[in-house]
């Protein structure tokens, strides 16, 4: 029982169901882990009392038919939680207590889970290392000098350190898949529109999508099944029948066609990543899949496109932080305009300000056509690259990131070098597709590396199945030493 927290969500669910462990004992075990892991700085807020109450309530009246029966879960602090402070990693929301619950978290609670705490993240999900959070860096459990990736860095760190049995993040340009890759965990960015955006602090609305972060592919299927739903309150939510991903998980991938895009071999990519990609190809081939060389010619333009579209949408979304209705308000300034300017200057960090300025500039009069319209056109070409290839292949295999976890402070002085981290993940967001990052091995330093499976829109089941087969044959096991406790 002492080792319950290093098990997978599926195993824990089984133990709760068979009464090997109570929900209360489980919750106490996680609380103990969290209290011993303050060094990682993964949590912004903990809700232990409420979690213990919920666990007792479950034990008194267990309902094991629910998908997440009796499970305590910590979630990224970008999801609004009713009566629980929600900060988005920002000073401007440091005092914000939502009076409503996001649809995605409500779905989790309706499935029998309950909240353990809120996880640190890059400010407004803008970052690739969790270094832009107002609440400080998060440490990667893999090593005390390493970033956990971002923006869902608190989520990846907490999951890999056994502080939550599974978690959820959001992914606008790679914010689930890159931290999953950096911590040796599984992360899925679903098809745009599969999980409701309602109640998630908005960053770039045409790209934002919530998704699961888990220890195994089966866990990922369970979490996706629980969190996804059609939602009338999200105007871009897809109206379709709920799928049972976990029940339909199959490891037979014989005859599947896997595309290998030549554009994902970039200059200066470490050999380790190339070798890992080769290993991934071999595993899928040995399982009976057919590898097909493909071309996604506009790949190199995805990041520049993203750095127009995302800041443009962010500058519009973040206009709401005016110090009037909620959030921080400056005490300085002699009139309304100065109050706005000081509020936003004090409330936002440097990276957020930078992106608001980029977005404001590319949308400003006289520049719209040169930047925003141009980016929308290139986005069309990027989407077409994928559409053309998905007539020939079932899924696409690529590395998740161009490097393993880097050191804290290593890239903070050069925004473009930080942005380049998302080079393999961003195209998927621009095209609205689902993609799964799978832990696949370690580099020479012993740091985890991930491979990415990209699917057709709404083809989550297929990439989960391929991932499931891959996981069984990859032989990767995440063995992190608990140096922090």
């Amino acid at each position, binding site marked *: 029982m002492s080792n319950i927290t290093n098990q997978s969500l599926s195993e824990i669910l089984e133990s709760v169901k068979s009464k090997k462990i109570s929900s209360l004992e489980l919750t106490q075990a996680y609380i103990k882990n969290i209290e011993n892991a303050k060094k990682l700085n993964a949590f912004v807020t903990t809700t232990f009392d409420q979690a213990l109450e919920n666990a007792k309530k479950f034990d008194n009246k267990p309902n094991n038919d629910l998908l997440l029966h009796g499970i305590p879960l910590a979630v990224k602090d970008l999801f609004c939680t009713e009566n629980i402070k929600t900060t988005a990693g920002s000073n401007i929301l440091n005092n914000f207590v939502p009076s409503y619950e996001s649809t995605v978290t409500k779905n989790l609670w309706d499935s029998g889970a309950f909240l353990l705490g809120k996880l640190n993240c890059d400010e407004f999900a803008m970052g690739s290392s969790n270094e832009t959070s107002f609440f400080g860096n998060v440490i990667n459990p893999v090593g005390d000098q390493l970033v956990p990736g971002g923006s869902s860095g608190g989520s990846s760190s907490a999951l890999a350190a056994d502080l939550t049995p599974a978690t959820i993040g959001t992914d606008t340009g790679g914010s689930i898949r890159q931290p999953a890759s950096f911590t040796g965990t599984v992360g899925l960015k679903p098809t745009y529109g599969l999980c409701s955006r309602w109640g998630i602090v908005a960053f770039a609305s045409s790209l934002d999508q919530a998704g699961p972060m888990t220890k195994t592919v089966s866990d990922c299927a369970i979490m996706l099944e629980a969190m996804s739903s059609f939602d009338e309150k999200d105007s871009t939510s897809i109206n379709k029948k709920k799928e049972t991903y976990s029940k339909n998980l199959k490891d037979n991938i014989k005859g599947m066609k896997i595309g290998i895009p030549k554009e994902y071999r970039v200059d200066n990519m470490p050999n380790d990543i190339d070798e890992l990609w080769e290993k991934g190809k071999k595993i899928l081939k040995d399982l009976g899949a057919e590898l097909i060389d493909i071309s996604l010619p506009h790949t190199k333009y995805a990041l520049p496109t993203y750095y127009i579209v995302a800041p443009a949408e962010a500058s519009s979304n973040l206009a709401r932080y005016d110090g009037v*209705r909620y959030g921080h308000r400056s005490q300085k*300034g002699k009139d309304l305009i100065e109050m706005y300017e000081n509020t936003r200057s004090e409330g936002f960090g440097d990276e957020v300000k930078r992106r608001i300025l980029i977005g404001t500039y590319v949308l400003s009069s006289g520049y719209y056509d040169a930047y925003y319209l141009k980016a*929308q056109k290139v986005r069309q070409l990027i989407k077409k690259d994928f559409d053309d290839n998905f007539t020939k292949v079932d899924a696409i295999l690529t590395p998740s990131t161009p490097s393993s976890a880097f050191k804290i402070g290593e890239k903070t002085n050069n925004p473009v070098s930080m942005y380049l981290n998302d080079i393999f993940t961003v195209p998927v967001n621009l095209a609205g597709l689902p993609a799964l990052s799978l832990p696949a091995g370690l580099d020479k330093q012993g740091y985890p590396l991930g491979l990415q499976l990209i699917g057709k829109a709404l083809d989550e089941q297929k990439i989960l199945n391929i991932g499931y087969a891959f996981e069984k044959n990859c032989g990767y096991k995440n063995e992190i030493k608990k140096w922090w406790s």
Partner: protein
Amino acid sequence: MSLDKEKIKHVAKLARISVDEAKVDSLTKDLNSIFKFIEQLNELNTDKVEPLTSILNQSLRSRKDEISDGKIREKILKNSPKKSEEFFVVPKVVE
């Protein structure tokens, strides 16, 4: 194109963010390096490409124009930094 300090101050004004004079230089440098990166897009001829405005193959749903919740004034005012009775309070706008 390159952004000079004056341009950046103007954009900051549009975005309603006051910029610390001491930080303008580093901000100018960072934004110019980002724009240099972004402007790779100019290599592509997109004259005949339709802009992508939605990645979903569906048009936005419409709904009946009717109140679906309501009576939540207190909830809406709850997080306001400054309020008076039923109103948000802002610095004086009209003399």
